């Protein structure tokens, strides 16, 4: 990659505390994402992922340290349309009677002159991204009639219709079944290949991150790890998920064999291809540490 290109996202010594909060939500975070790279940000709930996302999107200001998006301050980058954001699906009002095509055009069309119809250029572009994400078959369906995976594609199309340089996905796999997740990983790979776009995926789910990332950053208030997914050792995961969290423990075993540890009744277990399983328990003894 030629030297003068600024990194897609560059964060140095970032700390942030919500007003009135005693603890920092983010502390001393340094992170660099090259253009065209796929970075997964993995972390437990409450680990500062959403805050980091809001800072990159320019929605939260008043932080210490420096944050640059394509060499610009985040608020400016957002206004310039450099970022395509795919929020969690639950936030969409699916009761709104609009089609996938309309949804996909929302972000690209709100700035247009209201006295004129949407120009052909924008319409063609929306059709192009609908094709690209594989949503043209259901483009005229109302959004209330879609499956989770279909709605996700529609939202990715909406982000891509703005021709962003960076695509940011917030918890993309929540509520999507295993076959759906495999398809989703495939889609991201295709988008990355076709558009050479930088992709940032934020999730608490190891599977979402491991599926399509060149590098992984593990975030629990501080940045714990920042490298290729193959380097995600049990020690790192264990440190990450036990950090100020209620009874979360992580250990490694082969994905074919049963877990050697006794999980308390009611614990939810997540196993991934890496052979790592993270289980979350609600044992009172473990709960003492997390005072949220």
């Amino acid at each position, binding site marked *: 990659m030629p030297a003068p290109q600024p990194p897609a996202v560059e964060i140095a010594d970032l700390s942030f505390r919500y007003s009135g909060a005693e603890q920092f939500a983010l502390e001393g975070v340094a992170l660099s994402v090259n253009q065209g790279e796929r970075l997964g940000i993995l972390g437990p709930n409450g680990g500062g992922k959403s805050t980091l996302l809001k800072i990159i*999107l320019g*929605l939260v200001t008043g932080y210490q340290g420096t944050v640059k998006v394509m060499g610009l301050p985040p608020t400016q980058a*957002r*206004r310039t*349309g450099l*970022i395509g*954001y*795919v*929020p969690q699906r639950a*936030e*969409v*009002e*699916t*009761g*709104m*009677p*609009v*089609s996938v095509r*309309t*949804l996909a055009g*929302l*972000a690209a*069309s*709100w700035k*247009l002159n*209201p*006295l004129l119809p949407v120009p052909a250029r924008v319409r063609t572009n929306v059709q192009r991204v609908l094709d690209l994400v594989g949503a043209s078959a259901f483009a005229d369906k*109302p*959004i*209330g*009639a879609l499956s989770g995976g279909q709605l996700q594609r529609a*939202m990715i199309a*909406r982000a891509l219709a*703005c021709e962003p340089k960076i695509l940011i996905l917030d918890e993309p796999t929540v509520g999507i079944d295993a076959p759906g997740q495999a398809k989703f990983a495939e889609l991201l790979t295709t988008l990355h290949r076709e558009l050479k776009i930088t992709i940032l995926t934020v999730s608490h789910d190891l599977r979402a991150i491991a599926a399509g990332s060149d590098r992984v950053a593990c975030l629990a208030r501080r940045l714990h790890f920042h490298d290729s997914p193959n380097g995600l050792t049990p020690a790192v995961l264990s440190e990450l998920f036990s950090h100020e969290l209620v009874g979360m423990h992580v250990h490694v075993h082969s994905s074919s064999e049963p877990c050697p540890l006794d999980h308390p009744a009611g614990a939810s277990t997540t196993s991934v291809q890496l052979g790592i399983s993270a289980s979350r328990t609600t044992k009172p003894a473990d709960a003492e540490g997390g005072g949220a």
Partner: protein
Amino acid sequence: MKIIEWLSDEMTRQLILPPMVAGLGVVLLCAVLSVLVVVKRMAFVGQGVAHSAFGGIGLASVISVLLSAPAWAGHGSVFELVVVVAFCVLTALGMASVAERRGGAVQVDTGIGLFLVASMALGALLVEAARQIASAKGIPAATQPWESLLFGSILNASWSDALAALSIGSLVLLTLFLLRRGMLFYVTDESAAEAFGLPVKLYRTALMVLLAIATVVAMRLTGVVLSSALLVLPGAAALKLSRRLGVVMLLACVLGVLGVLLGLTLSVQFNVQAGPCVVLVLTAFFGLSLLKPARIAPTAPTALAASGAAGESQAISPR
């Protein structure tokens, strides 16, 4: 049918046509907004704004008697309308600022309820104050009967009322037309809209202000208690019937217009108040729309029921 007789007689036509035109203007405005209100679950905001009109009416009465009750500041005057609209818009802005603090000290519906009861209480005291000032000054206190405030007096509408309803309605709809693309984004997916640079605060405030204006105009037709019905029922029924935005908007308008025409017909026929007739007809339409197999997420009826119940109890208790 009495309504036909009324319309065919020159004298009575002049009585029934202005309310009809005013009613149609109001209902078209409310029908379009009601779709957004239902999807965005803002029914309670409509209730809150409508009830805060009490404060505006009280304020207008006090100003009027302080000025020794000039003719231009009486009840039903443009002056009163302006004061009430201004008061309601301010309340709506207050509610919008509360609604912004997501996860803050005050929950959104608590904030709305707070504005609602505070301005109603203020209105009750101000109306009483106006009465006392008037009797001290020895001038007649032109206080409006509570019943017409609560349930409206559309049948008394004059041509100037109709003109006011039509022009305010057109202005609100024109504003909505100019903001339509951003508003669609805001209503469909607020948090994403913000991330894509949409000035969410501006759109939220604009929607609240438009809603406040529509509520005040609707209040003249159906009164405080029932005005928010116009801002919920047409949209709620239309959303049950279609999932195409254009069709939903059109259906909401058609149902609204039918509701006003049928409601007025019933009102004239049986010599009863028009506002409640219109609202009951619209409620019947909504009931009929439920007969269609459900395809839309069940947000519409829930929002309606919740706001209706909350609004009613708070509306009646101060009396």
